[in-house]
């Protein structure tokens, strides 16, 4: 096929895309840069770009003052745990919706998604009270449940669009071959949906990792993940930009690395149903 676009249009689109990309990237870049400055240089005006004394003291101090690995471990457990629990429910739910739809399936899907439009603070008080009364405050189990539930609609929606693309015939063939429902799902449906499941899991890990509202409100120390780790640098000790930046860099680094390496997979998953 021939590319009909004029070179001028192509160039201006490229420039525009680069500007948007840089705008999005700049805060992260600035954060990383700041984390290597001294507190004094971090707030100096005009800000210095490269020509400052590069230092690692912020990282050393952050690690000394609070246990990064404990927070990181909590982040991993919450993100992976909520994703795995979510997957069990989302796969079964999406299977039912994709392969045994009723007249109301579309409505149910929209309704599930609409719960994501409600501000979470609207249910903070009831959930907080439930957590307090059931002794779930500051427990990993409680947080896994909350994270799994808030992300479930997105998981179901993504898997549903994926499953829709799988020909029903193949599942019926498995049924004729004597596969029970669990076997049909495990041996036939899931292997065919691996790319979709992988991108759903990835997105969910990222969402759970970055989730800051519930993780901050329902934890104090034992179950606190990296979001709490960052937050602990912003308020109580005044604003220490350099240390805050170091803490933030440490917190987002793992997920940035995962995201970078899996971006192909992720884009493919998110745009699936749309292309084809």
């Amino acid at each position, binding site marked *: 096929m021939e590319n009909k676009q004029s070179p001028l249009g192509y160039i201006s689109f490229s420039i525009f895309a680069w500007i948007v990309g840089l705008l999005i990237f700049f805060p992260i870049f600035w954060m990383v840069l700041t984390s290597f400055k001294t507190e004094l240089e971090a707030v100096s005006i005009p800000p210095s770009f490269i020509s400052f004394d590069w230092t690692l003291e912020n990282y050393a101090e952050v690690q000394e003052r609070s246990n990064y690995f404990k927070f990181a471990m909590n982040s991993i457990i919450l993100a992976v745990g909520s994703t795995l629990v979510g997957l069990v429910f989302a796969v079964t739910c999406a299977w039912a919706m994709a392969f045994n739809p009723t007249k109301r399936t579309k409505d149910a899907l929209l309704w599930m998604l609409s719960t994501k439009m409600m501000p979470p603070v609207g249910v903070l008080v009831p959930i907080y009270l439930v957590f307090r009364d059931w002794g779930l405050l500051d427990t990993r189990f409680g947080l896994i449940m909350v994270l799994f539930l808030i992300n479930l609609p997105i998981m179901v929606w993504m898997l549903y669009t994926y499953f829709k693309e799988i*020909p029903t015939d193949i599942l019926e063939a498995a*049924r*004729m*071959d*004597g*596969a029970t429902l669990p076997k049909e799902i495990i041996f*036939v449906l899931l*292997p065919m949906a691996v790319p979709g499941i992988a991108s759903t899991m990835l997105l969910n890990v990222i969402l759970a990792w970055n989730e800051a509202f519930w993780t901050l409100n329902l934890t104090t120390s034992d179950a606190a993940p990296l979001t709490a780790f960052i937050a602990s640098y912003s308020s109580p000790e005044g604003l220490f930009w350099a240390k805050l930046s170091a803490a933030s860099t440490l917190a987002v680094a793992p997920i940035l690395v995962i995201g970078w390496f899996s971006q192909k997979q992720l884009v493919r998953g998110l745009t699936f149903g749309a292309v084809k």
Partner: protein
Amino acid sequence: MGAIRLEKVKKSFGTLDVIPGVDLDINDGEFVVFVGPSGCGKSTLLRLIAGLEDVTDGKILIDGTDVANEAPAKRGLSMVFQSYALYPHMTVYNNIAFGLKMAGESKDVIDQKVQSAAKILNLTDYLERRPGALSGGQRQRVAIGRAIVRNPAAFLFDEPLSNLDAALRVNMRLEITGLHQELKTTMIYVTHDQVEAMTMADKIVVLQAGRVEQVGKPMDLYNNPANKFVAGFIGSPKMNFLGGELAAKHNCHEIGIRPEHLTVSTESGVIAATVKIAEHLGAETYLHVEADGLGPMTVRATGEMPLGEHDKIFLTPEQDRIHRFDAHGLALGPS
């Protein structure tokens, strides 16, 4: 052991009655073909027998046992889908072996059965390939292989050859017929294709709007259609239906004459007509003509015919090949 009997089988999707009530007897070892226009419920009926759809009402008896509420696997039937429906992530070997694995067969038994099926179907060289790396005909063979290893009471085919090109279709048709002669297992076969229906079937079931119009041997349906619908549906090109004086002469509402039962003459005959289009196929010639006072007709003449547009011809029906119908479209006996 594969006698299937349907008793007052009904199927509705919501308020839509797709199958209003079907009774049908299929004997053990029979090759039965379901034909009918698109959307008449052929696939639905097959899927009801397979257990992929639940009956709304009625009984499905396999060897005397009502299986209407049994899971598909419990019915002991195998199905070959139009789309092949192979498991894309498994090798050919595992595709064929899947049903046996689900049945909990031992590795040795599985291997022996898969190898022997592969041999029958010429798939031995492809066992380690994925379906994606096979041609359409090979995929179809894998689908059949998957069906035969389970040693079913009956095979169900839903338009299995319609995705293949014409030459391959003829080959596979012969292969399936050969398979039936070898296995002697009941087969139910859905198709659109006249030739498949006429050549493969022991018994043809003609369906229309979820109703059985007629059941019979291919040549019975051809020679003695029960009504106008079957008469028009079986045979290609379609039967000509003529009303008016000609029908009155035969004491009926309408008469039907197949295109191949008309003799063509340039000098004299019963019906005068003008050629509109002549299709020369070599071995035969199809003439689409406008009969004077009777409307369009089709004639099928053997051999080459030096005729073209605007030529005047005369047609004479073979007297004992005329079908007579009453006002309701039901066939009347010979006059």
